[in-house]
């Protein structure tokens, strides 16, 4: 019971802070909106895949992008908590490290979900239509992807002591995950080396699952998308929990 209240305490803090930082919320959906509009209408003027508008094609990809960026950076920002010594108070609290991790992770998921929600609301204004089924599948994949990505961020953040590593994480984790996921292009005709990279990228399955629900074009079976995403989330939560338990 007290551990559950502890999870709530950590979650409460994250959500309070998030809702208070309005500039972060605005930035978080303006950025992907620019992507959708510039790529969707710009590139979409001369490109289309599988008989869909390009803007429809990349919409799930851009949502995934938004989830990766905000979630991983949310996790990394715990370096800031450690820096301002606020985290000390949390660390000495009579709570399990796993509880701290879960609370923070759920806080990050909530943030990501709110931001993705804003994009989902804006979607119809850009001519994107979804059925109730598509919306449900999208939300499930968004939530899973957020949980996995926040966990990666927290696992890395737990080991970091300064902000210097942020650029490295961006170059070696975030950008490869995004660009090699099929968010911007279909996986069909890729050269074999690129195709292999997308196959081992868990985000490919997230994007594929969302696109399948939205447009009915699946590259992998939806069951495979879901299972691999779930396995990825479980593995990342385990890695994050382990990092928190080892953190000093």
């Amino acid at each position, binding site marked *: 019971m*007290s551990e559950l*209240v*502890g999870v*709530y*305490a*950590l979650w*409460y*803090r994250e959500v*309070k*802070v998030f809702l*208070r*930082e309005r500039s972060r919320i605005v930035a978080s959906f303006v950025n992907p909106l620019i992507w959708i509009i510039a790529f969707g209408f710009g590139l979409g003027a001369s490109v289309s895949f599988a008989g869909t508008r390009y803007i429809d094609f990349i919409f799930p990809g851009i949502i995934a992008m938004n989830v990766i960026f905000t979630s991983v950076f949310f996790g990394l920002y715990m370096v800031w908590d450690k820096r*301002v*010594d*606020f985290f*000390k*108070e*949390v660390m*000495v*609290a*009579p*709570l399990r490290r796993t509880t701290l991790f879960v609370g923070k992770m759920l806080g990050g998921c909530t943030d990501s979900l709110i931001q993705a929600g804003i994009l989902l609301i804006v979607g119809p204004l850009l001519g994107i239509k979804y059925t109730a089924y598509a919306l449900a599948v999208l939300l499930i994949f968004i939530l899973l992807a957020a949980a996995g990505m926040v966990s990666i961020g927290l696992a890395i953040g737990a080991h970091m002591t300064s902000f210097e590593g942020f650029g490295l994480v961006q170059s070696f984790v975030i950008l490869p995950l995004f660009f090699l996921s099929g968010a911007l292009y279909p996986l069909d005709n890729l050269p074999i080396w690129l195709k292999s990279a997308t196959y081992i990228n868990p985000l490919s399955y997230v994007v594929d699952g969302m696109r399948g629900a939205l447009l009915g074009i699946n590259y992998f079976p939806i069951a495979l998308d879901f299972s691999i995403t779930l396995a990825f989330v479980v593995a990342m939560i385990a890695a994050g929990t382990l990092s928190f338990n080892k953190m000093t």
Partner: protein
Amino acid sequence: MVFQEPSSDELLTGYENLYVHALMYGVPKEERRKRIEEALELVDLKDRARDRAKTYSGGMRRRLELARGLLHRPKILLLDEPTLGLDPQTRERIWGYIERLASEEKVTILITTHYMEEAEALCDRVAIIDYGKIIALDSPGNLKMRVGKSMITARVREPNLDGIRALPYVSKVEEKEGKVTIYLSEAGAHIQEVLRYLGEATSVELREPTLNDVFLKLTGREIREESPESWVQRYSSVINR
């Protein structure tokens, strides 16, 4: 536990800081609000409770953290250098709050500090730690007895040195260029008598030993090359109620 560095969450308000703490430490739901308000009242932060901790001064953050440390009614409160880097007014106030905590909340407080006057003002028992070991542990009064001597320094035109030396409680007398220094036990009790014997003084200075003298005597005067170590290993002192 109250840390040396400010450890309140600057993005939350004072009230929210305490609320999160109450949740983490399992304060029962019915009592949370009441205890938070009491704690804020105790450190005079009630009217700033709705402001973000970011807008607080260093002393206010300290007070907020003191209040936070009390929320879950601990039996022992650890304060790591509670007044480090604060101005004298704020330090006095913090001392006032600490004394209030000890007397009103009946909580045992363990303080680490580098300020000897702080230990002297607040603590019932003081431990001096040198190179990680406790080398003395006693009440401030008893510790000062170890240094023993009070000092009276006086400027006297024709000092009666022999008369002074004959007094039973005087242990040593020095004279230099018309300035007489008398070492004795408990100067306060004997100052009248000493001055009567001494002759006509133009200035008198009385100095009682302080914890600072005790500290220097016990640990020597050379500067310590300290490696970063855990706070418990530093000088610590205890208030016990």
